[in-house]
């Protein structure tokens, strides 16, 4: 295929496609109508190159659908780390990389002019001083090269830190790197250490490993910088999957914390949205890119309010103040025998988060949820279907939806009328 390159400048598009392959898994070529078919072919080819072993093709009446099917708990390494290893570069980038490393590993503290001379005399490559200076500056930022002032000019040397030496000098570090390279966040950085030393994770599997979310690590450095420096960001948001939006939109946010869900692997930039004048949590997998902007002068006050509000989030939603104002907390009674069904009570205790749980009867345990968005709690409450004795308080719409859901489920699975068993 003419023009195809395995390497890419950025993987915004790739993230978008992988999400569709990974999450939906039932789309055919023409469903990817946001982009050209050429883009589809290239992105599919890249995905095959990285995770070909886990891709699945099914021919349906609508066409061939591409999906990714893998039990992520049964693989030792996140295959999507490959996306991070596919950055494009120029011929001079790779030449200079290995030649500079070679020169600086032989001699300590060389000035730029001497390095340029050595590149020509020892290796036969002629580079402009400016090109070499730029590369040395870049490598100084990456912590590979140290630049020190000597008189009026700078002298360069190589960092003394070596990955192999670290691992041999610090017992247990290798195992730690193997483990941390597979868990959020920035696991890919640990994986890059292992790759440089030809190591493989032969010890750990991660249950319910949400592989796809590793791609969002790309956004985190800018978000974390904005959090530290109290700066606004502008997030470019992918067009919605189910909405009529065809183009991305921009949303300003003052990020204050990264929320993550251990249950779903999803992560969010949580903070103050000036346009909406309230706190929100934006899903990172919906954000294409982040631009760091101005410092917020009112950060202290907003941050205090944010911490108070976050303590009342059951999940990631801050709700709407009009919904929660003046409502009594939600109270849900659960029925369980504390001796025979101790595991139900243990799970309630373990998973209740900011709610309180108390024993209010022989077999009754009452959960009180004074949270900003009670809608979030009901998804979890329904994991206890068969145990819920009574639901009180909170908005009537939430209670009505719960009753309606149970009623519909009863009809759906209803006793003798059940004809759907396969």
């Amino acid at each position, binding site marked *: 295929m003419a023009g195809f*390159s395995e390497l890419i400048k950025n993987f915004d598009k790739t993230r978008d496609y992988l999400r569709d392959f990974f*999450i*939906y*898994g*039932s789309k055919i070529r023409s469903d990817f109508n946001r982009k050209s078919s050429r883009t589809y072919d290239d992105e599919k080819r890249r995905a095959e190159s990285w995770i070909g072993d886990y891709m699945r093709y099914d021919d*349906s009446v609508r066409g061939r659908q591409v999906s990714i099917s893998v*039990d992520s*708990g*049964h693989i030792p390494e996140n295959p999507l780390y490959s996306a*991070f290893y596919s*950055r494009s*570069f120029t*011929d001079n*980038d*790779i030449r200079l990389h*290995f*030649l500079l*490393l070679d020169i600086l*590993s032989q001699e300590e503290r060389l000035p730029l002019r001497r390095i340029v001379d050595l590149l020509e005399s020892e290796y036969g490559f002629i580079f402009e001083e400016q090109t070499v200076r730029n590369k040395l500056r870049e490598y100084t930022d*990456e*912590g590979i090269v140290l630049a020190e002032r000597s008189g009026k000019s700078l002298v360069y040397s*190589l*960092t003394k*830190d*070596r990955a192999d030496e*670290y691992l041999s000098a610090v*017992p*247990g570090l290798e195992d*730690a790197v193997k*483990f*941390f390279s597979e868990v959020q966040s920035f696991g*890919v*950085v640990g994986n*890059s250490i292992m790759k440089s030393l030809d190591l493989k994770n032969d010890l*750990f599997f*991660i*249950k319910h*490993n949400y592989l796809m979310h590793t791609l969002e*690590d790309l956004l985190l450095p800018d978000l974390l910088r904005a959090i530290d420096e109290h700066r606004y960001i502008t997030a470019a948001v992918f067009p919605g*999957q189910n909405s009529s939006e065809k183009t991305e939109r921009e949303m300003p946010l003052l990020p204050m*914390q*990264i*929320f993550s*869900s*251990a*249950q779903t*692997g999803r992560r969010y930039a949580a903070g103050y949205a000036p346009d909406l004048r309230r706190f929100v949590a934006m899903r990172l997998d919906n954000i294409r890119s982040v631009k760091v902007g101005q410092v917020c002068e009112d950060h202290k006050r907003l941050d205090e309010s944010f911490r108070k509000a976050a303590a009342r989030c059951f999940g990631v939603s801050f709700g709407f103040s009009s919904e929660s104002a003046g409502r009594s907390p939600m109270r849900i009674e659960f029925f369980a025998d504390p001796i025979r069904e101790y595991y139900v009570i243990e799970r309630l205790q*373990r998973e209740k988060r900011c709610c309180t749980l108390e024993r209010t009867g022989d077999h009754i345990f009452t959960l009180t949820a004074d949270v900003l968005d009670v809608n979030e709690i009901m998804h*979890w409450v*329904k994991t206890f279907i*068969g145990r819920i004795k*009574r*639901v009180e308080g909170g908005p009537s719409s939430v209670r009505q939806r719960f*009753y309606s859901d*149970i009623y519909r*489920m*009863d009809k*759906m699975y209803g006793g003798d009328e059940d004809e759907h*068993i*396969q």
Partner: protein
Amino acid sequence: MNIFSELYGAYFRIAAKLLTLGTTDDKTVREAIFRGGFRDSILFLPQKLIPGSEDWGLFRREKDGSLRRVTKNAPPRILTGLQKSWLKAKLSDPRIRLFMEEDALAELERRLSGTVPLYRQEQFRTTDRPTEHDPYSDPEYIANFRKILRAVKDRSILEIGFVSGKKNRIFGSFVMLKMEYSPRNDRFRVYCYQLKGGKISDSGMINIGRIRSVRDTGQVFTEEISMDSYFSSRKCSSPAVIRVTPERNAVERFMLEFASFEKHSVRDPETGEHTVELWYDVHDEIELLIKLLSFGPVIEIMGPERLRLQARDRVRRQVELLEKFDGGWKNDRP
């Protein structure tokens, strides 16, 4: 510092590996690309490494046909600023103590004394972290963890006493296969086979936090072990079949929540409904069931029969409880 940098890229890595060899040949170059590259790298990379009209000039062709590097030494395996700052961030993670003694931690701390951590724990908040997790700072837990990890590496046979999920005390001989970490529960488990008379009798999983005693028998399990056989011994015989409706954005919510499962989905273009087959560990069936029920009526468990019947029983029991105790049920249900 940039995570998405060619410094960590597959092409740079392959070049570094070949430059480490000093002298190489065309065949070795191609093999290195096959092993370390992407699926199509073999189409793009050889001509960049092997001298010709497009090459990078990193190797010279010798008279005997071999390839000699232009550099004088093997490239150093540098730990970059990004990698150091990642390690520094991990120093604040309590789980690092499972792997390293105090003096090793002090040594790492000393080496990274001038490094700024890539992130700080307080910049993140896990919203649904369970209130209980494994006791990472408990000396007994750490000691058990290390014994198990050692046994995973050298396949030594251990005698382990532990408390099961059903609170039974169990004691037996086990061979350790791999460690598993669950971010949801913030717990470690170990995949193992129970041994009786030196032979495999059952596949199992032990929570490290429930171990009460560990003794190394001094024996090593020498038979070959395949993780595929272990996993297939625990896999469901037929997948769960789930009908997912588009109501309340259920398709996206469902697909995201079950993204970690091996699955296959088919979409009905008329209704927008998806039929999804999910493969799961039979020992996790209850966990799967309650997760499915949490979606309410916007999904339906179609099969297998056992799973559907369990859903039906729980829903039936739920209706009975509400009818008996909850006044709102009669007033507010449809």
